[in-house]
Every structure is written in C-alpha cells, then in structure tokens.
C-alpha cells in the first residue's frame, strides 16, 4: 500500500498549482490574453478539486467547488475579474493551501476551525454566484438534458456519455479505491445508469482479496468535456482500461467497445442496454449484421497497452509538459556527497601519480581530474535553481501588504535568472519576506508625504540578484524615506548599545538595526516594528555563511544587501600553508597573491599605491613555531576580497588550487570564528577552510587606522 506516496504527490502538486494560480492572479491585470489566464486558473482549481476528490478529501472538494463555480462564471464573462475578486480568490488560495498543509500534517478531515475560516470565503464567493450553490448545481444538471444536438447518421439516440471501466488488479493495493472515482465522477454530472461487472472475479480459491477485479459500465449525464471526464481517472489510467464514448456516437463505437471487452458479446451488450446507454433495438441491429469476432477476449497483458492507446492524445500532451522530472532531494544530496568523496579520492590519486613520477599514470590522473571536475559541476548544477520563482512569490506579499497598509506599492524584480543552490533558496525566503515587509512598512512613506516630497505617489520596492565573486547578492531596495541616522543613534544610546558620543560610520550606525530588540518604528503595526525580526534575519543569513549589509540615503531610499555563498557543498579552493598546517581559501574570494612586503612597523602594505591592511595568519591563529629558515624571506600575501573590501593574509607558502569538499565542523567548534569548515586533502590530512568574510572583518578591526586610510584611498 503506498497511499502515502500518492498523497504526497497530491500535496506537492496542489502546492505547485496554488503557486501558479497565485502568480496568474497577480499578473492577470497586466496580462495581454486575459482569457488564457482565467482559463489557466480555472483548470488549476479544477485539477485540485479532482485530485482531492480521489482521495476522499471532501472538505477540499466542497470548498474548491465553490471557487471553481465562480471561476466558471468569470470564464464565461458573466463576472468581471475585478480587484476585489482577485483579492478574494487569493484568500481562497491561502485557505486551500491551509487545508493542504493540514492534510500534509496528517489531518484528512475538516475540523471546526477550518470550517469556520472557510465559511466567510464561501459566503463571499456565493455573493458572486448570486444563487446558493446547490441551486447552481441543479441548474447545470438540468441544462445537460436539454442540450441535444441534431443526430448524425448511425448515431445512437442516448444523450449520455458511456464510460466503460475495467480496473487493474493493483489499483487497491496502490491505495486507490475505484469507488472514490465513481463518487468523484458524480460531481461532474449524474450517473444515469451503472452496472457493476463482477464477472472477472475468479473462483474463491484463486481470488486474492486485495486485488481488484471489478469493472463498471456507466451511462453518465453531463455537459463536461471529454477531457474533463477522462481526467477523473488520471490517477489510474496507467493500470486500467478506460473507454469514454461521447453522447450520440455512431453505434460502431459502442460495438467496438463491446468486442474489446472480455466476456460474451451478448452479455456485455446487455450491460450497455441495462445501464441505459443503448436501447435493445440499437444493440440488436448493431450486433447481428456483424459476425462475432473469433477472439474477442482481451488478455490481461494487453490491457495496459490498450489503455495506453485509448489515452494517446492525453499522453502525448503529458510527455511534452513533463520535460523536467521530480527527484527526491535526498537522492540529490546523496549524489553530491558521493561526488564529494569522488573529488577527495581523485585528489589522492593525483597526489600519488605525482609522487610516482610515472608520466602515463600522471596523464591518466589528470584526465580523471578533469572529468571529476565536470561531474562535480554538473552535479552541483542539478541543485541550482533560478531565484525568479522565489522572487515572483513576493508579488503576492507586496500585493497583500500594500492592501493592508493602504499604500500604493509596486514590486519590480530583476536578475531573476541568477541561480543559486536549492537549499539556500529555501532558507532565504523567510528572511527576504521580512526585509520586503519591513521596506514596505517603514521604508515607503504614506502617499501624502511622498507627494509633499515630490516623489511619485506609487512607491517601489525592488528585488535584484546577481553573482559577485563566488557569492550571490540579493538586494532589497525601496524608494522610501531612508534611515534616520540620528534616531537610530538616539535609540541605540537609550538601549545601551553604544556609548554616548561614540563616533560611528554610517554603515556601523545602520548596522545597529540588526541588533536584537531594536526598532525605531514610531507606531507598531502588526507587520513589523516590534523589534523582532531584523536580528533574526541577520542570524538566519549568518547561519548560511552569508552576510547582510545596509545602505541608505535620506529621502531617497534604503537598500539591504544580502550576500550568500553560491553553494554549501563543494567549492574551488586555494591551498596555503603556515608552518605544518594547511588552509583553504575559497578561490573566488582571492584577488591575487603578491610577495610579502610591509611598511616598516605597520600592519599594512603598499599595494600599487593603495593601502592594504593584512594579518599574519601565524599570529592570528596562534600557530606554533616559526617559518622554516629557507622560507623566511619568501612569505606571501594572499589578497582576499569580500563585499568590495580587500585585505591581505600573510602565509608561508602557496600550494595551488584544490577542489574542496566542505565538511562542516562539529558543534564543538561552532564558537570558532574565522574557520568555516574543514576538508580532507589528497594525503588524507585535514585542512581548515578560512572564513573570508570573518577574516576581512577581523583585519579591519585589528587595524582601525589603516581601515580609515583605506577608505580615504
């Protein structure tokens, strides 16, 4: 029984569909082809309803049905998709999302709380429908019967669809009950006649009680499209035989069905008569002129094939849709781990080859190294996703928050194609949401103030992303009032964060707002301003080995810059040594390496006319022993760069590039600053990975004076 598996798929699909609906709803106003957008929303709602029906999630079906009815009216142009309706539909999406979350948490039935939350929404939706939903359903059912087309020659008189179902043996084992399909089918119309076919049940001794042997012949009154009816059975179309025949089809279509079905033609035909699809006369006229085919019995093996054929048009569309496949994230992680081990093993081979001085082996090892590098890049690429999907979610946030605040704010997005690691994307969404809300609440001034300042009344919040030296930079900016330096200083002094009269640079002052419990909002809204949040944002980003900075211009706006590592797994590193220890510096963050020189008596050097502060890694990390005599005068400076700032690291020797698999440090070492992880070298030794952002900070802290000079330079 893998009911859980199917349910998980349902949950994942629902969430994706809801996201799509949301995006479409938000863009519907600008959308060139509105009909297409409305259709897309309708289809998504319909699919959710359908799938929920299959799992017997009645509360979801009930609610989605009302939504769908309204959308149907919109589609037919009877209701305009105005702003209020968009907002209402968005709330409905949230409610469905809430129901799906509850299902994911194992709650398959509605509880009082959910019903209470859903009721106001359905109430509002029904206002659009104008009639109670029950009446609306009845009227569509009535419509069905009247929409008779002129009959083609040879067509049968029956106005019903005919659905022939033969379920595969494993349907129930796969967690699906054929009954639920039939129950769900009846939401699309009414079952005019049904015959349950139990002939395929074998003798008691051979019968497996967990296999499904049932089939159904159904006459179905509905004005739904063929595709909609076929979609009811989407979940079982793989292992079932499904045949849907449209009303008034030529008698030939039914005869073909009768011949294909296992069992005696007369008996099968009688079933079609019994459920009201054919009249006895039609059947007799159809069956007799044709000699009965010799082999009308379809073997089990042929079943899936036939089903596949019957569903061909649907299948083809499907294969075009699914050019991407869903892979369990754990599998991907495992792959990355293996690639990591491969890289380490490769490095070891390379080292051995070099030691043995065997030219052929060396060549072989370097080919291998190239391949490993490519495999590593492609494996990492698998986890890279575009940030656009995350950004587009913020359209909704901005839409909602703007309504709540009563401000006119628009979101502009750029750099959507910038890629970053999936694990990073997932973790960055919350901090970004907070930053965006904060910008809207505190950053953008009320319309009157904006007008008075001569700015456009409509405020703008922008999200931007780009790559910069091995990191991804995400900027959240607004064109609001900017930060008030004096107010922050006053508040910080009041909270005892700084001493009165302490001289601070702008960026230091602005950085204060990331301190716990800091808020300068004059009025506290339920969005932000309670002083919780910015510190959490900073903590979350730091946990991802990222940094956050802020810049602001009074009256012109604020930009929060978040920098994150591109990946959390494998990087290109550069090996340096100090004494007997080896360290890895992320290659992307290295500007250049220069010979050691220093302004006498100072901890900085002259790099082509610019002041470069440095730290001696030996002293900084308290490594024992002096440099070997011969390397005494051959120390080097590795120039590292982070967030536009440069610093130097003094090391004994440069050992070259190295593919580095990041192994996180144990919790014991979590307090160690300036070390971000460890890795294993080809020789089996452990090397520590230097935390460049922290080192740059340390260099600046160590050399207060040079920092100022650097700024001036």
């Amino acid at each position: 029984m893998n009911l859980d598996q199917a349910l998980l798929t349902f949950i994942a699909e629902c969430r994706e569909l809801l996201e799509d609906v949301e995006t479409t709803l938000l863009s519907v106003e600008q959308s060139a082809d509105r009909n297409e957008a409305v259709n897309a929303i309708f289809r998504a709602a319909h699919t959710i309803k359908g799938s929920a029906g299959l799992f017997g999630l009645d509360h979801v079906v009930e609610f989605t049905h009302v939504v769908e009815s309204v959308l149907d009216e919109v589609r037919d142009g009877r209701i305009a998709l105005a702003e209020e309706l968009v907002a209402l539909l968005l709330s409905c999406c949230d409610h469905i999302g809430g129901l799906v979350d509850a299902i994911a948490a194992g709650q398959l039935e509605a509880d009082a709380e959910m019903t209470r939350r859903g009721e106001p929404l359905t109430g509002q939706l029904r206002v659009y429908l104008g009639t109670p939903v029950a009446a609306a359903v009845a009227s569509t059912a009535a419509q069905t019967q009247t929409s008779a087309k002129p009959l083609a020659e040879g067509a049968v008189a029956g106005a019903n669809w005919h659905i022939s179902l033969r379920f595969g043996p494993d349907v129930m084992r796969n967690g699906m009950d054929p009954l639920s399909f039939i129950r769900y089918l009846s939401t699309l119309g009414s079952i005019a006649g049904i015959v349950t076919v139990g002939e395929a049940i074998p003798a008691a001794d051979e019968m497996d009680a967990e296999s499904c042997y049932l089939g159904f012949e159904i006459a179905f009154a509905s004005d739904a499209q063929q595709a909609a009816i076929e979609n009811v059975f989407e979940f079982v179309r793989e292992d079932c035989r499904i045949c849907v025949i449209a009303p008034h089809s030529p008698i030939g279509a039914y005869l073909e069905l009768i011949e294909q079905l296992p069992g005696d033609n007369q008996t099968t035909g009688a079933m079609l008569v019994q459920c009201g699809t054919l009249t006895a006369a039609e059947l007799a006229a159809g069956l007799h002129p044709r000699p009965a085919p010799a082999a009308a019995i379809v073997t089990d093996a042929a079943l899936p094939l036939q089903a596949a054929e019957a569903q061909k048009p649907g299948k083809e569309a499907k294969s075009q849709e699914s050019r991407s496949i869903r892979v369990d994230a754990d599998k991907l992680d495992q792959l990355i781990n293996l690639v990591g081990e491969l890289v380490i093993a490769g490095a070891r081979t390379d080292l051995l080859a070099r030691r043995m001085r065997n030219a052929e082996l060396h060549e072989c090892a370097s080919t291998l190294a190239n391949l490993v590098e490519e495999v590593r890049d492609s494996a990492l690429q698998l986890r890279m996703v575009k940030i656009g999907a995350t950004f587009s979610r913020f359209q909704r946030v901005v839409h909602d928050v703007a309504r709540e605040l009563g401000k006119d704010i628009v979101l502009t997005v750029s750099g959507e194609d910038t890629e970053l690691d999936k694990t990073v994307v997932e973790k960055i969404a919350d901090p970004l949401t907070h930053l965006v809300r904060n910008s809207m609440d505190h950053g953008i001034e009320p319309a009157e103030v904006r007008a008075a300042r001569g700015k456009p009344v409509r405020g703008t919040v922008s999200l931007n992303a780009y790559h910069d030296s091995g990191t991804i930079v995400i900027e959240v900016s607004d064109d609001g009032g900017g930060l008030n330096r004096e107010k922050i200083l006053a508040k910080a002094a009041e909270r005892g964060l700084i001493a009165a009269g302490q001289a601070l640079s702008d960026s230091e002052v602005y950085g204060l707002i990331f301190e716990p419990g800091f808020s300068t909002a004059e009025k506290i809204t339920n969005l932000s301003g309670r002083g919780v949040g910015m510190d959490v944002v900073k903590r979350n980003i730091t946990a991802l080995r990222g940094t956050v900075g802020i810049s602001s211009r009074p009256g012109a706006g604020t930009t929060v810059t978040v920098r994150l590592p591109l990946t959390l797994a494998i990087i290109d590193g550069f090996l340096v040594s100090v004494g007997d220890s080896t360290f890895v510096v992320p290659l992307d963050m290295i500007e250049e390496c220069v010979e050691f020189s220093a302004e006498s008596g100072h901890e900085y050097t002259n790099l082509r006319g610019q002041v470069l502060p440095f730290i001696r890694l030996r002293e900084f990390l308290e490594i024992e022993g002096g440099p070997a005599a011969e390397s005494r005068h051959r120390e080097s400076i590795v120039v590292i760069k982070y967030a536009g700032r440069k610093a130097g690291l003094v090391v004994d020797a440069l050992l070259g590039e190295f593919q580095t698999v990041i192994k996180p440090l144990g919790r014991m070492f979590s307090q160690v600053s300036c070390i971000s992880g460890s890795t294993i070298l080809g020789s089996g030794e452990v090397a520590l990975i230097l935390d460049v952002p922290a080192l740059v900070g340390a260099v600046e802290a160590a050399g207060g004076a040079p920092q100022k000079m650097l700024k001036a330079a």
Partner: protein
Amino acid sequence: MSTPTQALRIEGEMTIYRAAELKQQMQPLFDAAGSGGIDSIDLSGVTEIDCSGVQLLLLARRNADAAGRALRLAVPSAAVAEVFALLNLGALAAPAA
C-alpha cells in the same frame, strides 16, 4: 436443511485493509461443499465498505447462486446502503431471479 440456519455477522470496516481477513471469515460461503448453514450475512455492523468488500459480497452471491443456496444480505448499514445505491447493487441483496 438439517443444520440450523445462521447469519454471518461482519463488523467494522469492509475495506482493503481487512480484505484478506474478511475473506477468511467468509470462507464457509465460498466452499462448494456447503456453507455450514449460513444463509445470510448481517451487514448492520459495517462502518465502511470499499471495492474489496463489494467484490467479496459479489463472489459470495455468485457462489450461492451457483450452488442453489439461499443467501440474504441482511440489514445493510448506512455505509453499505450508500455504496449499493451508488453502484446500483440493490439486486445483490436478493437472490438472482
């Protein structure tokens, strides 16, 4: 019939989760040799029924008809009645005409 007639009472859910167990329980009904005097199935205690339950009942009905035995499906519970109505299985409750 010399043996006293008796009813087989089924309690709880008649679903895939208990299908194998139910088949065991209903085994007398499937034996060609004789049903051990069972001439009715009491469905009043069935809380839920799915297709696995339905096909067991269909099988019991088929075997009884083939052996010329009487079999009554007595007092269907609401859950059973609903499914019978949905699948138009009213005839299942009574012997074939």
